[in-house]
């Protein structure tokens, strides 16, 4: 179900343009709130979360230069070495279209086995009408219900559960929740 041009939101167009550049350089996934919003969830967001496989400084510099060439800029710095320092220190950085303040793409490097599992199980989600890689529906539900847990996140998870009713694996959700507790929460609930 591809979206007609007129159906595309400002967020959709921003994400697609950003992804066109990123996919020339590395594996990526779009995660969290935008996954729900791309499936119709009616709430606001200023940032879209993206996880990239970890890159060397040299490869990240190529990606950064390509983003600049395509009309994006980084809010933290124009210097790829400075931006890279943020990323390898597990801090996210934000890119916007040059001269605009939003929307913004919040990117970070994959940091642990959960993130690499998300990248390995990435999916295209035709219901969204967007030709981009997302983390799986099971991953998004598990993260929102087990780890993030704010009202907004629990509502996102409920929304995805209804949209994908009978189309996702509860067993996989539970497996991911168990992994999240082990890797990110020291085994606690």
């Amino acid at each position, binding site marked *: *179900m591809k*979206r007609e041009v*007129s*159906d*595309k*939101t*400002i*967020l959709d167009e921003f994400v697609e343009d950003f992804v066109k550049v990123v996919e020339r350089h590395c594996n990526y996934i779009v995660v969290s709130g935008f996954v729900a*919003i791309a*499936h*119709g*969830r*009616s709430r*606001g967001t*200023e*940032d879209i979360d993206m996880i990239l496989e970890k890159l060397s400084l040299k490869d990240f510099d190529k990606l950064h230069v390509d983003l600049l060439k395509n009309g994006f800029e980084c*809010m933290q710095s124009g210097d790829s070495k400075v931006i890279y320092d943020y990323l390898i220190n597990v801090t996210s950085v*934000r890119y916007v279209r040059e001269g*605009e*303040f*939003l*929307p*913004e793409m919040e990117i970070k490097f994959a940091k642990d086995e959960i993130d690499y599992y998300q990248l390995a199980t990435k999916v295209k989600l035709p219901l969204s*009408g967007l030709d981009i890689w997302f983390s799986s529906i099971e991953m998004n539900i598990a993260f929102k219900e087990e780890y993030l847990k704010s*009202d907004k996140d*629990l*509502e996102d998870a*409920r*929304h995805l559960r*209804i*949209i994908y*009713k009978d189309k996702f694996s509860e067993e996989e959700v539970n497996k991911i929740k168990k992994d999240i507790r082990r890797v990110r929460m020291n085994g606690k609930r």
Partner: protein
Amino acid sequence: MVRDKSHMEQVERWANFIRENPDKWKKQHKKFIDAQIIMSRRFYDKLSKTKKGRKKIILLRDK
């Protein structure tokens, strides 16, 4: 403010509408999502033209 259960009920109502009306929801959704971006942009544009406005915007984003 703690959200009451009517909030989740509305989330469920809208998600079911999307499932049942695959050709109708997008137009409504686009208006809603775009309006928020347009309003925020308008505000940030104004803020950026004030003294230390750009710095404040970066602080807001790093919250």
